[in-house]
């Protein structure tokens, strides 16, 4: 592993730098159906950049795992091309692809010791014994399990099994490693620690990782880029910050992080893509127009709970205020979650930071709320899936 460790990637910014490295995997117009009736993956076009940590995120049944399985070679694509290192691998057997994989339940061979598990991919490659032992040892060192080489997987804790599974997927030094919800079986604390460990391995070794999860916080904290899947289509492929700050569809806004949804219609279009929107109750608010809609078109507004200002002290023209009635208060320690209703129709949740100032919010109060236009995004409700 020391050899790999030296090959630390030169630069990795969130955007842009990947083009220089080129793509390692390309999906070209890939489709997949199991029953010839429903497309699990619809017309997938995706480039995985060399050395990046790409996460496929989505609810179950969204096609993310199927995409991973097609890349690993366990499911054939029904249409389109999958290209690995410039070569079409549609018909290449999984064992010829040289892709490391970490499975959801680890899939450590129960009849082999930890060291034997790690040696397995090297044995099937007929590696000389001395080299093999050296590699197994350094792989064990890498995941800090040197003392447990002779144990059976069943004698390890969940976190240790997870580390062995990662080490086994890396021990034959693949350029590409796939991970299929590898942390799903761990408890929260361990999951966070493993997120950190996998991330730091990625930084050290410079391998390309394609990671599948339905846990958005995992996706945001670990990835260079995240592809949000829904209904067989990539809804958005962006860096984590963009995904949260600039969701491109209502689904993404809803799926990533907490979100308030309000429906209304376009009232007027300003320059700089800002629109004014008339809510169902008649109030006028401002938002960023994502889908470039004309006046009168219905829209869905999406705004994060922490971006709404309650009882704004400084009123100015760019922040129109709304009257809302406090329905409910929930104390969370570091913040208070206030649920308000606008005109008794739509509810909206506001996170108020518990910064030590006495808050005078009580149930039944009428409060003024406001947000910056750029924090609120207006989507076309009829557009189910945007393309990338």
């Amino acid at each position, binding site marked *: 592993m020391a050899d790999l460790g030296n090959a630390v990637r030169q630069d990795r910014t969130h955007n842009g730098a990947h083009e220089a490295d080129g793509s390692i995997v390309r999906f070209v117009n890939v489709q997949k159906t199991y029953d010839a009736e429903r497309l699990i993956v619809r017309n997938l076009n995706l480039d995985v950049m060399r050395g990046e940590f790409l996460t496929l995120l989505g609810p179950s049944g969204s096609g993310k795992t199927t995409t991973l399985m097609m890349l690993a070679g366990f499911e054939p694509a029904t249409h389109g091309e999958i290209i690995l290192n410039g070569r079409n691998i549609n018909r290449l057997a999984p064992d010829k692809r040289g892709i490391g994989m970490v499975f*959801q339940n680890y899939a450590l061979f129960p009849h082999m010791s930890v060291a034997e598990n790690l040696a*397995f991919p090297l044995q099937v490659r007929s590696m000389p014994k001395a080299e093999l032992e050296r590699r197994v040892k350094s792989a064990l060192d890498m995941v800090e399990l040197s003392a447990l080489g002779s144990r059976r997987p069943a004698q390890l804790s969940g976190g240790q099994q997870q580390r062995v599974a990662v080490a086994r997927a890396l021990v034959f030094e693949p350029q590409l490693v796939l991970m299929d919800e590898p942390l799903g079986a761990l408890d929260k604390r361990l999951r966070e620690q493993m997120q950190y460990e996998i991330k730091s391995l990625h930084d050290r070794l410079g391998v390309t990782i394609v990671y599948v999860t339905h846990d958005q916080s995992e996706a945001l904290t670990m990835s260079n880029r995240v592809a949000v899947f829904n209904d067989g289509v990539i809804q958005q492929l962006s860096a984590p910050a963009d995904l949260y700050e600039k969701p491109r569809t209502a689904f993404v806004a809803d799926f990533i992080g907490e979100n308030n949804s309000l429906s209304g219609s376009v009232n007027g279009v300003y320059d700089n893509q800002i629109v004014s929107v008339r809510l169902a109750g008649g109030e006028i608010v401002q938002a960023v127009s994502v889908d470039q809609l004309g006046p009168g078109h219905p829209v869905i507004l999406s705004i994060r709970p922490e971006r709404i200002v309650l009882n704004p002290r400084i009123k100015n023209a760019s922040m129109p205020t709304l009257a809302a009635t406090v329905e409910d208060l929930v104390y969370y320690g570091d913040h208070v979650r206030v649920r308000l209703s606008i005109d008794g129709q739509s509810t909206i949740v506001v996170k108020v930071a518990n910064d030590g100032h006495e808050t005078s919010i009580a149930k039944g109060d009428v409060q003024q709320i406001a947000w910056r236009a750029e924090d609120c995004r207006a989507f076309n409700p009829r557009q189910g899936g945007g393309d990338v």
Partner: protein
Amino acid sequence: MSDHVVSVEDKAVLKKQLSTALRLQKFRAVLLVAPLLLFVLITFLVPIASMLTRSFYSPDFAREMPATAATISSWSGTDLPDENVYAALVQDLTSAQARKTIGSIANAVNMEVSGARSLIMKLGRNLDDIDPPYKQALDKLDPKWSNSETWQALQNLTPEYTGRFYLTAVDLLSDGHAEISLQPEDRRIYAPLFLRTFAIGAIVTLICLLLGFPVAYWLSALPLRYANVLMIFVLLPFWTSLLVRTTAWIVLLQNQGVINSLLVWAGAVGDGNRLPLIFNSVGTVIAMTHILLPFMILPLYSVMKTIPPSYLRAARSLGANQLTAFVRVYLPQTKPGVAAGCLLVFILSLGYYITPALVGGESGTLISNIIAHHVQKSLNWGLAAALSALLLLSVLILYWAYNRLAKVDGLKLG
């Protein structure tokens, strides 16, 4: 918090309280199990135990012939016994004649030396005409009485506790004086039969494994609803009478049966030399394999069902081709199923009785058939018990060996 620390005395009290609390539970458990336990005890364990004691304990002869038993034990066995032994024999037989038990005595001796039955019955008929000295009188009645083998048989029969049944069961011969030798080759029956039983059991087990493994693998890979339907076909033999299935094989396999007729019709074999498929060991193996196959498939299936497909996928992704992945990753994990299935089939086939009796013919009968013969026909229960005990012992050894192996691998039966 210090209130909650339990002192040593308190612990003793706690222990007592706990056992009182658990007593009712234990009592209930015993009550629930008791009916079955009693049933098994009365109908299974007690008869088996009493039968097995017959293999080494046979007091009947000594009880029927007390005088003979008392005198013949001092005979050296080299020459003919003394006159007093002859006198004791005549005295015992006279009283046996009166009790009308001479027939069973004659039978018992006949099991030791063939032809002894008529010798003793003849003596019984002529008891009134015999006068001392008995030695000459008996010799005159039948010269076989001057044969030391006859007396040897009588001496062998006298001890209450005896190993002679076991010796016979493994084709050993004892002259009654610590001299144990192998039976002459043409008289060895049981050891070859034991060997044949083990050999046929091994063959049946192997064929069951070869036929059952792919089926179980296929079933385990199918979606559950299809697998459940197809499992019915595997279980179908269980729901048919053993006799029906066995006779069906007779119909299929006999000389004028379906298979031979088809082969002749197809020109594969001539009409004159139809294949001998039944009433021999081939027939036994075929019929037993058919009947025992589910016992192989079920444990294999249940184990294979628990092996997630991700293991094979993991092996493939790590660079193993299909064959290597199967052999190195899948196969070792089926080991508990293979072991359980083989053990089950082999043990069941060791005790197989009806099928070999019906389709076995001369070369296909097994040890259980000879045991049945000794129980029902020859009435040599001691020998039958000894043979059964040896069979039981071999099964127990097998089971023990399996458990030893299983422990090493951390596997459990089933």
